[in-house]
């Protein structure tokens, strides 16, 4: 993978004025963010009764994801650690309220008041230790613990994440489970490198029918075009990565055998390479004394 912003600098430094402006003036990023937040909102599965809910947008940045929430009629409160990104959000006159805060310090929110939370491409930042006082495990614990407290019963939280590797995904998921969340990872378009997106869907409260983890999209090798997602039937939940079984090689303990060797030599000869002649010694093992 090319350079990840997470490995360059801490978020409050990486997203400086220049980066924040760049981020928000790119129509491509805006489009991606809008699509991701739309899908996150869909996974949030809020009751379809037209009542605006109070949602939390963690790592709201310049409010790109919050705009999708506003479009769907919800009220939101955004938290971000980068002042520059929040300044851009002010410039864009987003509807939601903004807080400058560090999610790794826990959310400063009263228990049981929020109807749902989304977070687009932010949680993986917690896996980095940018200061000597940072311990990713503790920061994740503080974050998920405070989130679990401030969500109302039965509420959901959906995080779109870019974990760097298996261990990171495992760490994030385990911290969420320790905080008392139920749920799992939903992978959209697992076979595509570009469109593959991971969502952590967490539910707060007792397990019920409605808390079953939703399915990912494009599981069956569907290419995941830019068009809206088709059906949701033929998908499964995957928590592992995309290792496909390798072709088994026909090797025994003795090696590949004389027959195979002769075949290969014949092939090489047909290609016009110089190949030693076949003798009684061909493909024979050397004595151990040799």
């Amino acid at each position: 993978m090319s350079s990840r912003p997470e490995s360059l600098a801490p978020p409050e430094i990486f997203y400086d004025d220049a980066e924040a402006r760049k981020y928000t003036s790119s129509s491509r990023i805006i489009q991606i963010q809008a699509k991701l937040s739309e899908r996150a909102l869909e996974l949030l599965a809020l009751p379809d009764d037209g009542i605006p809910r109070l949602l939390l947008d963690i790592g709201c940045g310049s409010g790109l994801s919050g705009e999708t929430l506003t479009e769907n009629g919800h009220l939101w409160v955004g938290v971000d650690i980068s002042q520059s990104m929040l300044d851009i959000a002010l410039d864009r006159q987003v509807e939601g309220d903004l807080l400058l805060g560090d999610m790794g310090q826990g959310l400063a929110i009263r228990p049981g008041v929020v109807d749902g939370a989304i977070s687009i491409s932010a949680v993986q930042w917690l896996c980095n230790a940018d200061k000597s006082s940072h311990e990713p495990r503790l920061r994740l614990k503080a974050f998920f613990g405070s989130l679990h407290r401030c969500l109302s019963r039965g509420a959901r939280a959906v995080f779109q994440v870019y974990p760097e590797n298996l261990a990171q995904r495992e760490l994030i998921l385990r911290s969420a489970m320790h905080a008392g969340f139920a749920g799992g990872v939903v992978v959209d378009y697992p076979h595509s490198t570009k469109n593959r997106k991971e969502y952590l869907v967490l539910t707060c409260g007792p397990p019920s029918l409605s808390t079953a983890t939703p399915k990912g999209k494009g599981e069956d090798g569907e290419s995941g075009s830019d068009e809206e997602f088709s059906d949701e039937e033929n998908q499964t939940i995957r928590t592992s990565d995309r290792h496909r079984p390798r072709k088994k090689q026909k090797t025994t303990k003795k090696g590949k055998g004389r027959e195979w060797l002769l075949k290969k030599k014949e092939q090489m000869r047909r290609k016009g390479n110089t190949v030693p002649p076949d003798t009684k010694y061909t493909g024979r093992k050397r004595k151990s004394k040799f």
Partner: protein
Amino acid sequence: MRLLTHNMLSSKIKGVSNGFPLRIEVEKVIEKQVELNPDFLKNIFPKVDWKALVEAGRTMGFAELPEEADLLMLDSSEFLSKFHHALLELHLEEGALVCPETGRKFPVNKGIPNMLLHEDEV
């Protein structure tokens, strides 16, 4: 920052047992008109800490909220509009939020409260 957000915030400084409600220090208040949505207000009402909202409204210069409120009052449109105004239309633009136990100030600039904690407060 709306009073709705203020009503949700509490101080999470290490060792503070009850960081709610944060006291408001006002420097500048602005009002933004928002459309009234009765469904949202009914939905959010049980979650709002009424006392804190009344108190916050008073510090922001809006003293028309009754001391006590219950679900029945939500049917009166007059009450709804006051509730709506206090909750969603009053914005704290400049000022500070003060932790009720430690007195630590969280400055509010351009409507954004700075809730970042120092390393020894985590």
